Structure formats: structure tokens, C-alpha cells
């Protein structure tokens, strides 16, 4: 198997790995690099569970070849909290009970981070359409939307 050597930055840390040409970033994150916080729900870009940021832009890790990531910066769910503790989005998801089984939660939190960086004070419709690529089967989305609204308030007007 002709493996390719790649050097990339994951959550600010330089990481080297070997991958097969057709392997996705998702597969390499999970099976090679042990970063299992990024989840697989479909591997076809239809559920958003594997949402990560690539150079700051929201993408599905299942639709990025690992081979393409050389020299790029990847942010995964493992890179959202900081030394100071949970990111406000994470905290609000907890406070609003915005997760039940929790499998979609990492993807939703990464997607919400991208949303709030672009639209710091989104209305409900903007949130719902931005997050339409993140399927959740447990919550009916109600509490997720409320958590995002509350996180936006907190980030825009820190207490």
C-alpha cells in the first residue's frame, strides 16, 4: 500500500501521520490518530457529526482526504475548550440540556463555533439554517437552538 506522509496542525499541535491516498481525514483522525471526539454518523456528508474546522472553515471531515490536509490547520472538538475551561458554547449546551445521547454534540459545537464567529448575534432562522447539516435525532433541536442563542448572548456580552 503506497502510503503518503502528511504533516498538519491539529488543534495547534503539529502532527505527522501516514495515510492511504483514499482515506478520509475522519478515518485518520479516529483510527490512526486516536482523536475520536469527531464522530462518524454517515461518512457521506449528510449528518455533520464529523464537523471540523479546516483553516477556520466548517467542513465535514468525512469529505476531506487526509492527503489534502498537509500544511493546513484543523480544529476538532478536542480543541474547543481552553486552559481556562469549557468554551461558553460547551457550557451552554450543558446548561440547556441540549444533548441527550451526545453523539451529534461534538459536531454541533464545532458548527456553532463557526456560526458565531461569522454571525455573532444570529436570529433563530439563521441558526436553524446554519445548523441544518448537523442531524440530531434525540432533541427535536429546541434545546440546541436555545443553547446557541444563549451562547451567542454570552459571547457578545460577556457577563
Amino acid at each position, binding site marked *: *500500500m503506497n502510503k503518503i506522509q502528511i504533516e498538519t496542525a491539529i488543534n495547534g499541535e503539529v502532527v505527522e501521520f501516514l495515510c*492511504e491516498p*483514499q482515506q478520509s481525514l475522519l*478515518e485518520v483522525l*479516529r483510527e490512526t490518530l*486516536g*482523536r*475520536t*471526539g*469527531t*464522530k*462518524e*454518523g*454517515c*461518512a*457521506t456528508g*449528510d*449528518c455533520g*457529526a464529523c464537523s471540523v474546522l479546516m483553516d477556520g472553515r466548517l467542513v465535514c471531515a468525512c469529505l476531506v482526504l487526509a492527503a489534502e490536509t498537509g500544511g493546513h490547520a484543523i480544529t*476538532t*472538538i*478536542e480543541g*474547543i*475548550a481552553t486552559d481556562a475551561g*469549557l468554551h461558553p458554547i*460547551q457550557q451552554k*449546551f*450543558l*446548561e*440547556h*440540556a441540549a*444533548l*441527550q*445521547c*451526545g*453523539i*451529534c*454534540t*461534538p459536531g454541533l*459545537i464545532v458548527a456553532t463555533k463557526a456560526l458565531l464567529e461569522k454571525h455573532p448575534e444570529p436570529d*433563530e*432562522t439563521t*441558526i*436553524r*439554517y446554519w*445548523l*441544518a*447539516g*448537523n*442531524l*440530531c*435525532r*434525540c*432533541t*427535536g*433541536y*429546541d*434545546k*440546541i*437552538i436555545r443553547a446557541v442563542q444563549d451562547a451567542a448572548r454570552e459571547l457578545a456580552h460577556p457577563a
Partner: protein
Amino acid sequence: MSEAIDYKVIGTSPIRPDGVDKVTGRAQYGADLNLPNQIYGKVLRSPHAHARILGIDTSRARAMPGVFAVITGADFPESERGAIGGEGGGDVSDLAKNIMARDKVLYHGHAVAAVAASSQSVAEAALAAIEVRYEVLPPVLDLLSAMQPDAPLLDPNCFTKNLPEKPERPSNIAAVMKLGRGNVDEGFAQADVIVEGEYRIPMAHQGYIEPHACVASANEQGQTTVWCCTQGHFEFRAMTAKVLRMNIADLKFIASEIGGGFGGKTVVYLEPLAVLLSRKARRPVKMMMTREEVFRATGPTSGAICRIRLGARRDGTFTAASAWLAYEAGAYAGAPMGPGAMTVFAPYVLEHFQVEAFDVLVNKPKVAAYRAPGAPQSMYAMECAIDELSIRLGIDPIDLRLKNAAEAGTQAPYGPKFPPIGLKACLEAARVHPNYTRPVPAGAGRGVAVGFWFNVGMQSSAEVHINENGTVTLVEGSPDIGGSRASMCMMAAETLGVPYEQIRALIGDTESTGFSNVTGGSRTTFATGMAVVRACEDIIAQCKARAAATWGVDADQVLWEDGRAIPAPGVNAELKPLSLAEIAGNAARTGGPLLGRASLNAQGAGAGFSVNFADLAVDRETGKVDVLAFTAIQDAGKAIHRAYVEGQIQGGAAQGLGWALNEEYIYDEQGVMQNAGFLDYRIPVASDLPMIDTQIIEVPNPSHPFGVRGVGETPIVAPLAAAANAVARATGVRIHDLPLAPPRVLAALEAAGG
């Protein structure tokens, strides 16, 4: 038990103890474990919906470098017949054949072989090298055709069960069930109005976001550990042992975190394969389904055809009802037609009724439990019929239901008299709800429907360990799908009188805690919660004895209050209360570590009723339906964690709406599912739904220490009819079949004259 009880913790919404790990990506789900030396297992699946297997040649696959093991049906022991037991339902031999076909494949996607190889790509290449010779048979896909006497048979040994005499000829009808009371002819004769109709509900998938996954590691003696995502690891262990004829003592199951189940993770698919592969390969084997495999080969719920006839007097009083219910079982017997038959008329007082229900084999995946299995289908039909009656009689749909609603003492159609239930309380709350009393938006219709589920109890175990500083560790056996660790900790906090934050809950594996049935049947907060409360009461009794020993008084002279032992009134006033921390700190001197426990088979689950109403708008040019507002009112008995109870109700509403509007299994004529992915199996996305308003009614269940009924399943039942009734009222056209997909709605509008 009274609603006036002033709880400290029960009824609040604290942050779940496993929350931080789930928002940071630390929590380990089914596919998140990687073991040293691990290899990957994959399944070869049938390209035909119905075929005889003439031969399987695995020699090329076996010879490939990096391939460690190949298995087919021939590698499985001859399985016994008999009930699986527990929640799974069905027959062991059917379960065994469902996870790996033997002589016949019965649906497109049916497993025929599996390999274990050094990488996923090698495993895929090995699957491609396996040659299977089939004799293709005509697929049986349509429910009514399958029931015909001359239909091709899935199983020539299937003779319809529950008939007065064993039938002479085999049939695709695996079983029938009848239920009835009174005399329906007499009842219909008393009716001023009779409505009747045939309703079709499509096969639908649970649609959990996490595909099935497991890792199995067997040693040379056959002792095997399996990590998997499951609603019940004890029952997975039992099924795996039965299918492989293994000693349960040789199997240890560890439940990972679980990314949704809704009933679909109550039966094994991969685990026995992984065990066999690991035993052959002598290495840990990890197996992960693709999303496509999840759709093609794991438990959808039955499509159904339901015929309803309902008679009423002019004042709205129901005089008689009959139902004919046919449910798709998929490839093996076991459609939820029994609960479908028992729930169809459950909310109403009916002197005369009859129900006939059928469990029908078709060449589609074997159905599995899905949230209130069987009830959404039959109750959809009944609740639509009631809506038609409401329109015909000019009676408000809530008033009409109130007039006929069951209450404590009403004899349920399935037998017993109802204990206290909350149906009327839900209907009364709906009638005055601001979302109901406000005008219906222009262009929209408002639909009402009632939901019901029995809820169950079953077996649970719990242990309470008091740590040396007085903090508490709970050990229980119910996988946490929706925040149950939080509700367990809350019930323990309330019972023990210690702060919620001092308690942690652990889901033990099959070797570290007592047997527990699946997280399902809305039973966890009810039954495992009851076990937790009993275990806490056990520890309180022990603490009182320890305090009595410390004080030199009799145990009955000690009371437990606010997490402390205190002397009973009149007992030596000098005695200072002893906190749990003090008792724990002194435990070495008073008898050793403090460990309380309870195990039970919980009886007396409380029936759960709901009322939903929804405003839906219809685009008359395209047939597209939009949900403008949705309100769900449900009797929870007692809400332990309010936010997670609301979440169950909201999630069930979303699933019910998805089924009503867009979700369905679409097959071609060869029996190949055309939409086996989240792109075309359209579960609701965030922008499809409005906020879902909830109202929790609390009519306590006398059988539970806090009044819990269980809430998880009832919420999916009513949304189907609430949506359909809203569309009927918005357009003036009644569409009987689901989903209310745009082409169907537009065609109905055009047929009715635009």
C-alpha cells in the same frame, strides 16, 4: 404520594454528570475504542431481496495477505428454537439467521459472510473476493400480496399462530391476534354517524446517528470481552451466548456510551460475528456498520395498513369501533402487532369493539423495536378517524376526545381497569393552552391527536457505595441514552438528603453489577430509579444502625433527615446529628465499608398519555407542508429532571413529525431500498422544525416512590395524526397515507379539484 411534596432536587434540571465528557469529545461511544493489535471486521451482504444460497466460495478471500478470518453461516452452531427473552422478542433461531443467513437470504442487505483483516481496505477487498452463488426467488414486498394464500413463501415452515386450529398450509402470516368486547354490530347500530377508512403507514427507521459498532476480544480459552453500543449489555450478552451456544460466564459485555437507539439497539447484529471472528483470528476485532448498512440491515419499524371503523352518537359518544391491522414483520416473525392492537382504542371508553391484527413476513429487514412499538401506526389511524368524526359532527376535537376519554376505573381494551391516569388532565390542559385558544394562522390548519403507551418495569439492579468522605457512587446497569445518570443521581440525592453534586453514577459492565434489562420501554427512570431509591433506603437503614451503635441506642431510636442521622424525639438530647460523611469516616469502626444495594423486577409501570396539537401550512402549488407550531402535553407522573423530560417529548415529536411528513423506506421492484442514506431518508433537520412547546402534567404513578410513569415512548405516538389532521383541516382534503410528502399532497389536492 401527593403533588404537594416539596422536593429539594426532584423536578429541577441540574447538569448531567457525564456532560463535560460529551461536550469535549472524551466520551467513548461504540466505535471510539481501539485496542492494541486490533483488526477490522466487515460483512458481505446479499444483493438480492429473496434468494437461495447455493454455495459460498471464500477460498480467494482466505488466501489474501492481511486476511485473518472468514466466516459464513456454516461457522455458526445449529441454534435452538425458543424465545430470546427480555425485550428482544422473537425466536433465537430467527435471530441467529438474521445476523448471518444460512440457506436463504430474505432481504437485500442480509449478511452472508464476514471477514477480519488488517485494515478496513483489506477487509473490503476480501469481501469482494468472496463468491456467492444464488438462486434468485421472487421477492414478497407488498403487505396485502404477502397475505394472499398463493403468495411466494419466505418460510415454508411458517404456520399462522394463534388460530383456533393449526392451519394446513404454511403462510406469510406468522401470527394473528384478536381482541374484543361487547357486540360491535349492536354498537354500530346505535351510531348516528360512522366513519371508516384505510390508512397506510410506511416502514420507518429509528435513525439514531451512531451506527452500530463493537470490538470483541477472545482469548484461547474462549473467554471473550465485547465493547459495544447497546441499549442493554446484559441482554446482548444473553443473545450472543444463545446464538453462539456459549457459556454466559465466558462473555463479558461492556456498554460504551450510546449514540441513540430508540429501540433499534435492543438486538444484536454485529456482536456474535465479532466474537466468532476474534476467536478465529485470535486478535481483537473491531466492527463498524456504515450508514447504508444501518438502513439496509438493522431494525426499522413495521409499515402497516390499518382499517378503522368508528361509530358515534350525534353528541359525540362513541358507540363502537373496529380495527383491522396488518404489520410488516420483515424477514422474520415479530411485528409489534400485539401492542398495536392493544393501544389502538386504549384512550377511550368503548363498550363494543373488536380488533384483528396480523404479523406478516415480507422480504425486508426484520423489524426491531422503535419507540412505543406498534402504537404510532394503529393510533395514527384511530386518531385520524376521530378527527373526521369531529369534523362531521362539528364538535371541537379536544371536546370530542374528552367526552370519550378513559379515566381511573375505565376498563382498558387490553383487559384491566386503569389505575389513576392523566389523559383527561392532558386534554383539559390542552383546551385552555394559549397555543390552542389563539387563532389558527391564515392558510394553516390545526390538528389534534392523543398518544398512549403502557410503559414497562422489568428487572434492574443498583448499588450505592458511600465513599470515605461521604460522597456517593451509584452503580447501575442501564446504559444512559438521554441523561439517565442525572435522574439516578437526583433520586439518590433526594432519598439520601445529600447534594446532587456529591453523587456520581457509573454504568457497570456485566461482571461488575447485577442484571438489568435494556434501557427501553420507558423503564429506566421508573424501574432502575426504583432500584436506586431502594438501594439508598438500604444504605440509610445501615447508616441508622451505625449511628445507633455509635450512640449506644437502639436503631429504631434513630431518624434520617437531610442526609444526617438524628436521634428520634425524646431520645438523649445530648446526641449530635451524624452526617453521612461522619458515618462514612467512622465506618471502619462500625462494621466496614458502606454498601447498599437493591435488585427488583419492577411492577406497576404507569400508563402514559399525551395530547399534541400542531399548526401546519400547505403550499397548494407544490404540496409542501410546513410545521408552524407544535405543542406537546404529556403526563409524566413525576418529572425527575424536567429538562430531560421535555427533551424526550420534543425528540419524540420531531421523530413523529419526520415519519408523518417525509420518512419512509422506498423500494424498487426487486426489493432494493432506494434511499439508504441520510440524504434521501429524510429525518427532520433544524430548519424543518419550529420550537416544540411542552407542558408536563403530573398525575403520580402510585407504584413509584416519586410517582414516575416513564416518558420516552409516548411522545412519538400522537404527532403522526396531529400532522395529518392539521393538513386535512388546512386543505379540506383527508389524506390517509403517510408520509405527507409533497407529491402525495399535491396529487390529493388536484384530485379534490385543486
